[in-house]
């Protein structure tokens, strides 16, 4: 892909990220972080392609290891975030 397109995406995604995350209240900062962990497990997508589409043994091994760690992040990250967010209760549904 053109590097100019990549830079375009980089800058827009960066600004969008700042705007979105600035609005997250302090009370949710821990779930935000564990949720971000899950999203950063997106490396999984790259790893899937790498380990599945190549004949080279080293690439396959590296890709598979990347899948292991990225999956841990995705699965563990989303689950623990859900567990935490389920605990946040409002006054109205608490009593």
């Amino acid at each position, binding site marked *: *892909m053109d590097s100019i397109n*990549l830079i375009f995406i*980089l800058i827009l*995604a960066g600004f969008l*990220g700042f705007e*979105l*995350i*600035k*609005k*997250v209240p*302090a*009370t*949710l*900062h*821990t*779930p*935000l*972080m*564990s*949720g*971000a962990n*899950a*999203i950063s*497990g*997106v490396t999984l*997508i*790259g*790893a*899937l*392609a*790498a380990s*599945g589409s*190549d004949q080279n043994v*080293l*690439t*396959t091994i*590296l*890709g598979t290891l*990347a*899948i292991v*760690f*990225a*999956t*841990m*992040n995705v*699965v*563990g*990250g*989303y*689950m*623990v975030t*859900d*567990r*935490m967010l*389920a*605990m*946040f*209760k*409002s*006054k109205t549904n608490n009593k």
Partner: protein
Amino acid sequence: MSSALMVNASYLVAATCFIFGLKLLSHPSSARKGNLVSAVGMLIAVLVTLIDKQILSYEWIAAGVIFGSIPGVWLAKRVEMTAMPELVSIFNGFGGLASLLLGVSSLTHSTGTITPVLSVLAYLAVIIGGVTFTGSIIAWLKLGEHMPTRAIIFPLQRWLYGVIILAVVVLALFAAMNPGYLPYFYVAIGLALLFGILATLPIGGADMPVVISLLNSYSGVAATLAGLAVNNNILIVAGLLVGASGLILTQIMCKAMNRSLMNILLSGFAKPAARAAKIEGEVRSMTAQDAYYVLEAAKSVVVIPGYGMAVAQAQHAVKELQALLEDNDATVAYAIHPVAGRMPGHMNVLLAEADIPYEQLYEMDAINPRMDSFDVAIIIGANDVVNPAAKDVQDSPIYGMPIIEAHRARNVFVMKRSASAGFAGVDNPLFFKENTRLIYGDAKDTLNNIIREFGD
């Protein structure tokens, strides 16, 4: 529909899901749905990538997914809320490691030529991923107290940093000039792993919220760089969202401590300022029974929790006390300092675990103006975040740090193990104030003693 188009369309959907997920995270009532939306986005991207016909062998993928899911689920289910900082650190580390591995694998790929640009991008992914990995491991060890939590300072620290950074830059040039020549990468990986360790060792336990946030940001940046190396849009976008999130949290934490990022990363509280002036006055202590008499008459109470509450696992006892106070027609509020605990928002999660409604939790700036109106401020395992020295003692190491002004409440109860100084090693004039009473002992025991008095 061509496969490339389908894959890219699904990535667009996934990115939109991540963005909406984060948007829903702007309120506790919608946050859980947001997390689900984000997870659905991830699932779509994974499934479409798998269906994409370029993939030849599913055995390796299946093995990887299984071996990753089992510990992931286990950790997510088992972890205590007190230990969330450790879990987040270890996940940061795995994120970094995955990007490192992906960065290297983009070069061992048998198809396609390796250009200098690709080589440098993969190099950067490997470096940031490596630093994130070992840095997070050290942070995890410190947070779990598997190693000393204090700042570990070693001689020539800054020189060593300089030498490693220089070597990494020189190697980057070599990597650009000889694209695909792997030995440079192996040396660079070693340097990055070493640097992650060295850079995290000098950071003390009280600065951990900053380090976790920063490593969180790095794990996102590493994913973005790996995405650039393997030319994958979803990695670039999602990685940047995470990078921005970590950076904002880092900024908030630094501001809450009134220190620059550089100061935190380099000084590690290495030089506790020699304090000339000794605080005048005496510390007055009281028993749980005396505390009960005051609380029984109180109409408004503010609780200020700190890491000590997490250590004592006192959050459920706090909730019990809250219920008793409310039955007694008192209002109860909680004041949360941004750096209370070991990671951003740590206290909020612990209080949520104890079923305390989030409406009763207030940020520092929201509660300080009405601090005078509280009959009692109960400080549980917090010290530096309520230290008035930060406001009026110019030579104090924490001077300038914004604090929760508990000293302005009519009565201040401090639950504390002993009269020693806090994590920063700074004396706290609050303990010597006329209206302050210290209740020594384990916070949970003390709270339970007060609760028992209510029962009698």
